[in-house]
């Protein structure tokens, strides 16, 4: 058996195991556990796609919340029934033809990804004219603009009231299915010639150009793919919580994603997956710190939001003491797990 065949076999076994675990949770798990697993898969999708542009292209994009919002609204407006829409839009009528359109979930997912990609394409021209801090500011601004537009265009988004009563289509199969596809595509891409070109741009853009690589084309490619999966993840999120409003897609969402990929290791897909999984799990595990704590005579009242303080602390500790994060730029491989050549460098 060649190594490639062995790895393929092991990967399929891993997928099968994931399937069995999901099946067990789906049938016997509590709603609470299923919810955490759904969140985890959506975070994984978001972190892995976000890491493609931030970690592998070395571009500090601060606007993924915009693409999540665009995906969420696009899909919501497609899956809600016309009567449901009429109930929601009480201040201003939903514009034609959105008020009569009704599409199946899978179509809405693809449309969510496509719309996010379209928006990414439109802003890519101003965004990639600049680099570094300036690029961060432009994308941050874009994220805010989209949020403000969600508030302002009441005829499309219902403004601050948001959309309620979305059909709860999202389940474990959708969220983990999308996560697996995202990981598959991103890993294939970064291990390909295109991924090498992106890393070359990250390492030294001048040298990359001297080798004939067009920075704009490759940054655009990463940006569009990243936006597509962010949009799809946004659609999954919308149909998981069934209520969306602009407050859901603030810079806070981007900040959480940044924590995930930095803690996991910028420039490692394995790291992004670990970071996202830890974040979803940790968010629940840390609920204790928000409960009232009794210390004999004293009682510390529960402080909502304490979890974020903890996450911020973890981020600071990682940045100061372990800048590489959990994985650095290394990737998981079956060799690593089986004790072959340890920590194969995939930078």
């Amino acid at each position, binding site marked *: 058996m060649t190594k490639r065949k062995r790895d393929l076999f092991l990967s399929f076994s891993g997928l099968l195991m994931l399937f069995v675990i999901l099946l067990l949770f789906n049938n016997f798990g509590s709603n609470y556990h299923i919810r955490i697993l759904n969140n985890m898969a959506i975070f994984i999708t978001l972190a892995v796609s976000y890491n493609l542009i931030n970690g592998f292209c070395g571009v500090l994009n601060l606007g993924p919340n915009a693409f999540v919002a665009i995906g969420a609204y696009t899909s919501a407006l497609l899956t809600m029934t016309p009567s449901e829409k009429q109930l929601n839009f009480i201040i201003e009528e939903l514009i034609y033809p959105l008020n009569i359109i009704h599409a199946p979930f899978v179509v809405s997912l693809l449309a969510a990804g496509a719309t996010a990609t379209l928006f990414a394409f439109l802003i890519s021209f101003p965004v990639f004219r600049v680099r570094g801090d300036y690029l961060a500011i432009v994308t941050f601004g874009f994220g805010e603009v989209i949020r403000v537009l969600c508030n302002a265009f009441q005829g499309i988004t219902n403004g601050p009231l948001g959309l309620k009563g979305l059909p709860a289509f999202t389940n474990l199969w959708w969220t983990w299915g999308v996560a697996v596809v995202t990981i*598959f*595509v991103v890993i*294939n*891409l970064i291990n*390909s*010639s*295109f*991924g*090498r*070109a992106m*890393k*070359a741009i990250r*390492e*030294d853009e*001048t*040298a*990359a*150009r*001297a*080798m*004939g*690589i*067009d*920075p704009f084309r490759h940054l655009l*490619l990463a940006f569009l*793919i990243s936006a597509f999966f962010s949009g799809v993840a946004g659609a999954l999120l919308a149909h998981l919580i069934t209520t969306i409003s602009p407050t859901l897609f603030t810079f806070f969402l981007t900040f959480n994603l940044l924590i995930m990929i930095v803690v996991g290791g910028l420039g490692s897909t394995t790291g992004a997956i670990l970071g996202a999984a830890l974040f979803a799990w940790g968010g629940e595990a840390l609920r204790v710190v928000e409960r009232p704590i009794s210390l004999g005579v004293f009682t510390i009242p529960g402080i909502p939001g304490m979890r974020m303080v903890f996450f911020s602390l973890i981020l600071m500790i990682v940045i100061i003491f372990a800048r590489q994060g959990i994985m650095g*730029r290394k990737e998981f491989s079956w060799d690593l797990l089986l004790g072959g050549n340890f920590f194969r*460098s995939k*930078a």
Partner: protein
Amino acid sequence: MDALLKLENIVMRFGGLTAVNDFSLTVRAKELIGLIGPNGAGKTTVFDVITGFLIPTAGRVILDDVDVTPLPAQKITARGIARTFQNIRLFPDMTVIENVMVSFHPRLKAQFWQAALGLPSYRREELSIREESMALLQELSLAHLALERASALPYGQQRRLEIVRALATRPKLLLLDEPAAGMNPQETMELADLVRELRDRYSLSILLVEHDMKFVMNLCERIKVLDHGVSLAEGSPSEIQRHPDVIKAYLGDAKHA
């Protein structure tokens, strides 16, 4: 013989500073030309103009009878000019072989979606890129370091890798910016042999900037001298060594000595 590259009256100004003024140069096929001059003479600026990193204020760059003046660096490379940098610019966190494989990317036939889906058509191409890169590393005796990180290489090997990476773009003209900088006499001699060998094996024209006069005089067939952005002299090594203007530029005016 036909000219491969022609610089016609290049002027490059940065604000009020004229870095290069009315500079012309012709490079023919398989020629080995040296570009020398004191510090700040504008040699690297000339390189940047040729490779498309700078668009000249005036003048034209003509490659194979095509005006390539306005083309960006990545398009110039695709048309057959490769370069190395004065301060080494490898991709430090990538392996040696990955550094070389990057140069094959612009000629890749597969589309991104074929790569993203891991289709066999893409995987075959990836394999052939790896083999060709390995062959190139073998020819320049870096194959044993293929899986090392580029930043882990000793200085001399890094310079060599930069040349391999430039060769992988399949150039007709190779520009070397101070290739012997920081090398000891032994390494410099080996480099001169290597440059000659490259020219013969890959039928390259080579244009190099270098401060090591012995290296330039031994290696180059024709030398162009640049001072304060202006072309001072052009000729064979022996002609240049006797040229009064060149002596003045390097050693000062004899009358005031």
